[in-house]
């Protein structure tokens, strides 16, 4: 058993973190916001934890105390929340493509800042982040409860008033406004929750990965999380969990399988190096064949529903009304 955990500990914890990062994208998506900003908050959270633990909490013993890790996570969450509100309030008045572009701009700005500021260690980053545990699998003590709590939270959220408001906005932002739901407030709320989650995961990941640099908050990462949600399922919180875990485990499993000789070497090598090729391919295929992802709400509902018809989302009209509103700020 111990051998299993020492070999696969890193992978298992990574799977849980991947699920959480998928969920950090799922939250803004619940209110219809395609935000690619999660990696920015993930990076931010990681820098906060790495910075605090290497520069502020420096006289801890051989093992970095877990309560301090939790404190860092809290700080990361709070800072992410503040940044999310500051960035989100103006940005989330945009819709669709414009919002996605604004979030891309955001993470690129964060990346350039991270590469240049002294406090983030520049291109080299921060290394030697202290460890609270002796083995990697022990990170599960933090990761697993975090995932379970988040999933419970989302389960409840989908069934209460606030969650319904998010879903209404996703379905039809214009109509939900006409039904009394404040779109900006709710979009910022869901965006902020996603940001907090990403920031918290970043904080503990800095310890988990031992070093932290600007490569953590890249555009690539956005695409990877997007794949988790797109393939796993974008309409239920279980989707990103399944997607995150499966897409993180798959390359490793295939590489392990090749070690037994059951797969040709080049396949396994491809699975390892070509991970992003596979992700890209899955995204392209997923948008065409599985627009709702693998795990769909229909699996859980026992009610009549016909096959998904072609989407006729009135995105342009919504943009237009919003554009008209921008002419005449009301």
């Amino acid at each position: 058993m111990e051998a299993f955990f020492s070999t696969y500990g890193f992978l298992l914890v990574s799977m849980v973190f991947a699920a959480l990062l998928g969920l950090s994208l799922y939250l803004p998506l619940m209110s219809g916001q395609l935000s690619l900003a999660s990696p920015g908050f993930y990076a931010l959270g990681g820098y906060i934890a790495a910075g605090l633990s290497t520069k502020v909490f420096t006289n801890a013993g051989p093992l970095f105390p877990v309560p301090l890790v939790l404190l860092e996570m809290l700080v990361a969450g709070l800072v992410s929340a503040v940044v999310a509100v500051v960035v989100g309030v103006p940005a989330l008045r945009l819709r669709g493509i414009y919002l996605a572009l604004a979030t891309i701009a955001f993470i690129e700005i964060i990346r350039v800042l991270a590469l240049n500021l002294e406090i983030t260690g520049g291109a080299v980053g921060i290394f030697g982040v202290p460890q609270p545990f002796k083995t990697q699998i022990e990170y599960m003590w933090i990761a697993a409860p975090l995932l379970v709590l988040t999933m419970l939270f989302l389960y409840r959220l989908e069934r209460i008033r606030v969650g319904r408001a998010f879903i209404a906005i996703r379905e039809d932002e214009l109509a939900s406004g006409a039904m009394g739901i404040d779109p900006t407030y709710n979009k910022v709320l869901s965006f902020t929750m996603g940001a907090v989650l990403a920031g918290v995961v970043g904080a503990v990941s800095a310890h988990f990965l031992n070093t932290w640099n600007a490569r953590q908050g890249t555009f690539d990462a956005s695409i990877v999380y997007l794949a988790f949600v797109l393939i796993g399922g974008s309409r239920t919180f279980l989707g990103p969990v399944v997607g995150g875990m499966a897409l993180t485990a798959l390359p490793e499993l295939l590489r392990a399988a090749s070690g037994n000789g059951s797969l040709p070497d080049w396949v396994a090598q491809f699975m390892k190096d070509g991970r992003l090729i596979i992700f890209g391919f899955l995204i392209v295929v997923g948008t065409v064949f599985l627009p709702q992802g693998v795990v769909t709400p229909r699996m859980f509902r026992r009610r009549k529903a016909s096959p998904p018809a072609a989407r006729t989302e009135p995105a342009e009209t919504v943009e237009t009304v919003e554009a008209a509103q921008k002419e005449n700020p009301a």
Partner: protein
Amino acid sequence: MSFTEFFQQLLNGLSIGSVYAIFALGYTLVFSILGIINFSHAAVFTLGAYFTYALMGGVVGFNGLLANKSLPIHLSFVAALLLGSVLAGVVAVVIERLAFRPLRARGADPLLTLVSSLGVAILITNLIQYMVGAEPYSFPANAYGTLPPAINFGTPDNPIPVRSVQVVIFAVSVVILAALTFAINYTRFGKALRAVAEDAVTASLLGINTDFYILLTFFLSGFLGGLAGTLVGSSVTIAGPYFGISFGLKGLAVIVLGGLGDIPGAVVGGLVIGLAEAFVPAEYSGYKDAAAFALLFIILLIRPRGLLGRTVIQKV
């Protein structure tokens, strides 16, 4: 800043800005015809540079599946540039057929197509990396023939040297932009293209083969992308397969700044961003890249339709 420095930076800015403009036009052409943002353009840009390098007989480095191999042909720079860009155009057409057409057929949201194009971009970029590795590639020093390394714009007493490559790139870009503007505004092809962009259904009712024009647009956008990629790659180096992605991201800033779907807007946006980057003070040169994104963010907040874009009025 002295006048010499100012002039140099001005020309730098115009030069890189004009390449941004050419690249952004690829986005703009597709957006104006189909209303989608095609991020795979960034990968096509990268491919153009690599194709040209390969067609000149360049050798693959130590990493990647094709390590140490090279094509048995050695075209001149100009020939390789043209052929490489044509190949890039072909790739763009293939992408349209395989990835975007099925989505169009089912009336998918443009956001979904953007996501798909992100997937294509990552796929191609990493495929390149898998094949030829991530190290930088340089074009041979004599790519531009017998030009001196720098051209002097000033007087012999007050020399203002500017890298020849920059000047060539600027000149080429101007020619391309002029040719494109002429083609779009004064030829039959151009008129048909604009008709399809305005209203595809009506255009097809008028006997215009919209499918052909969509393919043509993608080919043209790929050609421009490949061309821009080669120009940039030859001016510095091909910094690795991801150099297209960062260009692609900046290209988004260009088109939003200029106005989505607006052709002169792409030119204006490109030049503005090129100049903004050139005039970032030297102490902050690490932040150059952020200039484009800061501008993007700001323009999205205060005027999402961009500098030249118009709001489209439709019914609720």
